[in-house]
């Protein structure tokens, strides 16, 4: 009861704060749109009985002594059938590293991409698929990622997308949100990234950026003035290729906010995240 009493005083002040929730309405619209679109997506999904038009789908011939079929798209699913050398398989669809295949009798199962790469195509040549490899790490143009860390001791979540103009130079667009005990901070920025050694598996980089920072103090605090200011940042970090199209990214950035008061503000941020290249 004691807790509630003290909370009452606190929240009277709170409820007098102006209502500002334009974001909530927008997000709600997104959810409703999704609710409307989903049934449209579901109907073809339901109609899909796995026996669509076979004519156009690629076919491959087993070249190894045998190929194992699993009941599902994971190594843990049991092997239920094998295809012998010379058999033709139709590649119906793909989920991560697994292909749903169909044989001449219409039976279906899942075969791993490593096995598909050992088959032959219609021309008798080994099947080639564009599997992302380490070589692509330095040559692919687009990347996107999700990172988390701390901005001035407040937890920060950030997303970015980048385009490599050359092997060394990339342009990135960032959006970040830091939720501290005293304020909510939203940031957008454009960054130029330079990596001197694009061929290294662990590739260091430097970055410079310019953007905008919006600080919204918590409603429970006396000073509820919102502050929007331009901001610049400089940082360094590493990109670490893992496997497939994935790499880890870690970075530290120093931010300078240009305010109209006597002093500019500075903050340090570190983040760790997972990125994908396309």
């Amino acid at each position, binding site marked *: 009861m004691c*807790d509630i009493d003290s*909370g*009452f005083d*606190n*929240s009277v002040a*709170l*409820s007098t*704060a102006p*209502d500002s*929730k334009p*974001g*909530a309405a927008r*997000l709600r619209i*997104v*959810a409703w749109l*999704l609710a409307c679109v*989903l049934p449209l*997506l*579901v109907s073809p*999904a*339901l109609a*899909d*009985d796995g026996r669509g038009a076979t004519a156009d*789908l*690629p*076919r491959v*011939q087993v070249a190894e002594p045998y190929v194992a079929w699993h*009941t*599902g*798209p*994971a*190594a*843990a*699913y049991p092997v239920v059938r094998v295809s012998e050398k010379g058999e*033709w398989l139709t*590649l*119906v*669809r*793909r*989920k*991560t*590293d*697994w292909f749903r295949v169909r044989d001449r009798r219409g039976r279906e199962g899942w075969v791993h991409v490593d096995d598909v790469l050992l088959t032959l*195509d*219609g*021309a008798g040549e080994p099947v*080639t*698929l564009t599997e992302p490899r380490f070589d692509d790490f330095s040559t692919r143009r687009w990347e996107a990622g*999700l990172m988390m860390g701390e901005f001035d001791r*407040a*937890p920060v*979540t950030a997303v970015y997308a980048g385009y490599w103009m050359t092997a060394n130079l990339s342009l990135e667009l960032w959006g970040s949100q830091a*939720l501290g*005990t005293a304020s*909510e901070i939203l940031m957008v920025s454009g960054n130029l990234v330079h990596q001197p050694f694009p061929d290294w598996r662990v590739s260091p980089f430097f970055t410079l950026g310019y953007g905008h920072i919006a600080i*919204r103090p918590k*409603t*429970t605090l006396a000073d509820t003035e919102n502050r929007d200011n331009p901001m610049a940042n400089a940082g360094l970090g590493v990109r670490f290729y893992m496997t*497939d199209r994935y790499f880890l990214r870690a970075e530290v950035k120093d931010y300078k906010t240009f305010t109209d008061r006597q002093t500019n503000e500075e903050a340090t941020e570190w983040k760790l995240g*997972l990125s994908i290249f396309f």
Partner: protein
Amino acid sequence: METRTQHLFLTLSRRAWLPLLLCAAPAWAAEEPTLIEPDVRPVAVDEALIDTENFEVGAFTGVLNIEDFGSSFVYGARLGYNLSESLFVESNIGFAEGGETSFEQLAGDVELLTDSEREYVYYNLNFGYRLLPGEAFFGPDHAFNTNFYLVAGAGATDFAGDNRFTTNVGFGYQVLFTDSLAVELGVREHMYKIDVLGDEKTAFNTEIRCGLSVFF
């Protein structure tokens, strides 16, 4: 007499033709190789024709228990991307509405929060791991692939006048009716720090939900 001669002639000729026919049969079969080899045109594998289904989009509804503010109906949307057969990332957005605290109910006409402050919106980004891939059998003729997964991640909750950093952990059980359509039952625990009722404390909000998702 004429018929007898005819009969003899025809019988002889039939017996003479039969071996000839038998000899010709293999030669005729050899000219039709399509009976043995399937009709395959010499084409390379075109990856663009293979439908990849690594993305998941879905909607869910359920019950969210908002600490101190009762239980509420929750609905939302989920977008997922499968990194591998086990690992995935997902993003959720959910909407609910906080009820009255027990203090408000006992005190009568006291309102701790305005109506708009009771609107509860959360969003998050999670990593997930499919722990137990399996199959569920429905009668003797139907088998559906299933999996049990764990998720953990972070995001934000906009409730009671502020946007709060929120971590969440959870698990779920997903059943795939087809390769493209799945239903799931899940539980998520959302945690954030809140001081609306006095001292700052960590609120634990449990969400139980069922969802429908489509792979594309």
